[in-house]
């Protein structure tokens, strides 16, 4: 997703000199073309994320649209207060980009596991949160960051994900995208783990279970309408995220449902239990280990359908 992001950003930057990209000294070779073609719009702030974000806020208050870039938790948690106070509170056009959502950098250890960012960032006022599920969504979300006023967060997976674009698809910020139609089960998913939901749906289709997949590429604002409609029309609803269950997508979906007085017939959240993983491994391995890969999703769908309904 990183290359897709930078390619789309370059396209915009060539047309709009107010767009600036600041990296926290990460992205080896990634920015070479951007730097060559837009030298005045690129900056390496060094290994100093708090200052990178403050600089971005200062430039944004002077009319620039400023992307800050780093990996894992460095562009978010390390400088959370700069995002909250300097960017969000001032409505500054700072676009915080993190590459490496979830276990993208699984082998590097817990410092590089971005597994709480969505919960933390989505709690901030005055921010739009994008978490695209494939390359097409990553490109569209990049454009959406520019088109959306104020502060945005863009969470990118390192992996590409399986393509989901179909002719005529539209990326509308704040609206979930129906990647696949179905009525038995609705899986609401965010980020690159969308590919696991798709694979699970393929398996379940052979068993006669139809799965609707909604890609929640925007976490804030969350598409209440799509969630409510899915809860009313599907027999079961599951959420899937490569992220802690504490305050993540699943929690956000549950909030929206109950706030709208809607009780899904069956409901289950799939994600991380909220513990650190001292065990390392590839993204594929860790998804499997923590029960959020395609096989686990398919099994969760089966057991949820066979299980009790939500009490009213």
């Amino acid at each position: 997703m990183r290359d897709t992001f930078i390619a789309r950003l370059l396209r915009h930057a060539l047309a709009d000199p107010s767009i600036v990209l600041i990296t926290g000294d990460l992205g080896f070779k990634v920015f070479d073309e951007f730097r060559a073609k837009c030298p005045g719009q690129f900056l390496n702030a060094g290994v100093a994320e708090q200052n990178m974000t403050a600089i971005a806020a200062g430039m944004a208050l002077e009319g620039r649209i400023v992307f800050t870039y780093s990996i894992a938790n460095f562009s978010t948690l390390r400088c959370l207060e700069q995002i909250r106070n300097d960017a969000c509170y001032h409505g500054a056009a700072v676009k915080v980009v993190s590459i490496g959502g979830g276990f993208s950098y699984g082998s590097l250890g817990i410092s590089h596991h971005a597994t709480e960012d969505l919960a933390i960032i989505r709690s901030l006022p005055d921010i739009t949160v994008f978490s695209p599920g494939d390359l097409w969504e990553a490109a569209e979300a990049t454009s959406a960051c520019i088109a959306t006023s104020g502060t945005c967060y863009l969470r990118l997976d390192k992996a590409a994900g399986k393509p989901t674009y179909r002719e005529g698809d539209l990326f509308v910020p704040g609206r979930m995208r129906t990647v696949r139609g179905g009525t038995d089960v609705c899986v609401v998913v965010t980020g690159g783990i969308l590919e696991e939901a798709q694979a699970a749906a393929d398996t379940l289709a052979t068993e006669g279970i139809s799965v609707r997949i909604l890609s929640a590429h925007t976490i804030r604002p969350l598409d209440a309408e799509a969630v409510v409609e899915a809860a009313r029309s599907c027999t079961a609803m599951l959420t899937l995220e490569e992220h802690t269950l504490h305050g993540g997508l699943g929690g956000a979906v549950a909030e929206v449902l109950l706030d709208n007085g809607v009780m899904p017939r069956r409901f289950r959240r799939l994600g991380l239990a909220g513990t650190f993983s001292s065990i390392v491994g590839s993204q594929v391995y860790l998804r499997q280990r923590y029960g959020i890969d395609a096989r686990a999703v398919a099994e969760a769908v089966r057991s949820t359908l066979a299980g009790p309904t939500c009490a009213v």
Partner: protein
Amino acid sequence: MVVDHPSCLGKDTRQLAKAIRLHCLRMTSTGGSSHIGSCLSIADILAVLYGRCLRVEPSQPKHPGRDRFILSKGHAGAAVYATLAECGFMPTAKLATHYQDGSDLSGHVSHKGIPGVELSTGSLGHGLGVAAGMALAAQQSGQPHRVVALLSDGECDEGSNWEAILFAAHHRLDRLLAIVDYNKIQSLDEVDKTIRLEPFTAKWEAFGWEVRRCDGHDHEAMAAAFAPSRERRPVVVIADTIKGKGVSFMEHQVLWHYRTARGEEFSAALLELEAQS
């Protein structure tokens, strides 16, 4: 494009400083807020900045050519509100609402609804980085205006400042002026007994800044010290100040970082401040 005729410039800075001090005493006492000592410490700095240096215009608070001022030590927000009111950015009557229920004049400085405030602060270590970003934007687009950030000494414990100090020197942000209100007292104790800053001048110099040191209550000295860099470097003015300056029983006392003057203390402080010329 600069502000052509800034109406604040040319004010009598001694009278301005006196007015700021009186407002701050009344605001903190009426609202029951802390930080009167911190406000009195920077009253002269603010008076010289707004009376003799900053090109800002209350009738056009967002003029693109204005100088930008950021109070990074946001806890002294009352002093900035008072200064802005004295310069015509808001009615002085509004100051009476400071720190009270329903007011937008928060204890730590906020920009929302307050013309003339560039940045909301309150968490220390934010202002200099944002100021550097503003100065970089001005440098890149060839705008001549300056960006000024006023820091406290205790605030220099925050590592984020040193990130910004490195950055500003590397990019030769000569439109940037940092002023440190060096009253040698921080939140709980003296700076020297908490986290020592000395040799303070040498630290800034080693980081590549043009360093000037002066008495933060000497208006002529400050007006000279606040002049732009001639070396294409960011400038820091380390202003030696007295916490609680102007009220004898508040001067040099850590107590007045928190205490609110009430009753006889308020009357005594008022008398002392009103008696100043």
